[in-house]
């Protein structure tokens, strides 16, 4: 039995590639396997492998048209093409074929999330009814509530997800974001620290930690994180911009100006936006404390 890395997006890029190889081996050794193929389809979705995903969906459909896995794979194929209503139809069919398949409900929830938050919440709740330990659904609910600006509800659901899957840096980062929006900086920083420790290659939580450090006026640590990020992903405008901001707050005008020039080079379209943002940074310096949200 091959070990199946179930949640590709929580791991580093190398692990995602490993997962893909493992699944390819599974398909070669056991071509009629349906079990776990919905996970493979999501992996292909993340990797945006349109062709492979479509092929997988067609094969699964011809193996067993009444399996939830096949319809989840088809739904993922449509979802990758941004054909939302078609994807939803497929996920609904998967739900009907196997009402205990929590993942089909979760994926439907993810499709709804940009369109109708209430429907998304309902879908995630149905997923939890099928399987209360399905942490993806807890995560989805957290995201819904965060979008509705119900910060405490979001934190509760994210924490539930993190309880089930404690080593997931993305989830910890989400809890951190909810805590941050509630106004608890120290708590958020602790969570981001833990997430960075768990998964040092996760650039997003490191970036969030740096932003947190800036707002706590610990500029030196923030600059260290941001410089690390700039070196690993030089094209990310958010990083460059935050670095410019941090340099300015330290008082290093030269480096700040240099970073702004780079930011303008990386995304010339956003020149006006950058200018506007830097003006608000100036206001921050004058006004001192930043306004808290939530």
């Amino acid at each position, binding site marked *: 039995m091959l070990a199946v890395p179930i949640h590709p*997006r929580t791991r580093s890029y190398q692990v995602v590639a490993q997962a893909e190889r493992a699944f390819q081996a599974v398909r070669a050794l056991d071509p009629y396997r349906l079990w776990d193929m919905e996970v493979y389809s999501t992996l292909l979705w993340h990797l945006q492998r349109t062709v492979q995903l479509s092929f997988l969906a067609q094969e699964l459909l011809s193996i067993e048209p009444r399996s939830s896995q096949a319809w989840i794979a088809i739904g993922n194929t449509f979802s990758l093409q*941004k054909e939302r209503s078609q994807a939803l139809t497929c996920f609904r069919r998967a739900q009907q074929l196997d009402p205990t398949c929590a993942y089909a409900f979760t994926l439907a929830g993810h499709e709804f999330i940009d369109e109708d938050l209430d429907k998304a919440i309902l879908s995630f709740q149905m997923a939890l009814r099928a399987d209360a330990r399905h942490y*993806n659904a807890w995560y989805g609910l957290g995201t819904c509530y965060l979008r509705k600006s119900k910060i405490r509800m979001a934190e509760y659901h994210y924490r539930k997800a993190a309880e089930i899957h404690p080593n997931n840096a993305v989830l910890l980062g989400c809890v951190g974001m909810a805590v941050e929006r509630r106004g608890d900086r120290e708590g958020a920083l602790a969570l981001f620290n833990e997430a960075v420790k768990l998964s040092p290659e*996760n*650039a997003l939580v490191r970036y969030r930690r740096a932003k947190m450090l800036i707002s706590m006026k610990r500029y030196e640590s923030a600059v260290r994180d941001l410089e690390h990020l700039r070196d690993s*992903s030089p094209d990310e405008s958010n990083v460059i*911009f935050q670095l410019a901001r941090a340099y300015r707050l330290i008082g290093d005008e030269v480096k700040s100006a240099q970073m702004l020039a780079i930011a303008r080079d990386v995304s010339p379209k*956003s020149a006006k936006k950058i200018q506007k943002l830097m003006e608000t940074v100036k206001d921050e310096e004058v006004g001192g404390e930043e306004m808290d949200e939530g």
Partner: protein
Amino acid sequence: MSTVVQFSPLATDPPATVAEGVFLVHSIKRPPALPWPDIGHLAKWSVSSFKFGFGPECLQDQDPDTFWHSDGPQPHFITVEFPRKIAVQKLSLYLSYKLDDSYTPAALSVRAGTSPGDLQEVRAVTLDRPDGWITFDVSAEPGDDGEGFKPIHAYILQVIILANHMNGKDTHVRGMRVLGPIEDQASWDDPFPFVDPKFKMYEHIR
């Protein structure tokens, strides 16, 4: 605030109008493939009046041979009500002077607001013998990046047909689509959308 943009299909070839960023004209019957997502299905559509069998459903049915036919006092209008505030970038209308003659709208006004009581005009458009799908921005305010126009955030969008060609009374509209802005994945806190896979892969769990 209103701007009137003169539009003449006789004097234009499509690339010129695209470059202006004002009108996109597709002289085909089927709805053209556009980069902006269609958000019309989220809304409740209604019209000021219609002839039986030629109601608002004809606007959305993707069939160029069916049309909304007004049947009542002027002004004629189409109201699109969204359940929540939503960003609207463009409107796409299928009008055909060849088929509809004096029933073809010549002047349109687009209004937006939070309820039927506080609609404000955001865009006025005059058309000269249109034929095909005509796509235009709902706002006239230039965007931040110096290209295109800002989307309008509203609950309700209303298209009022102010006048028809040759002073026609009733009006025909063969299709209408409401298009949202191209998805900008920037989250609420971060000024730019993430581009590097090292960031993007950690943004969501699925």
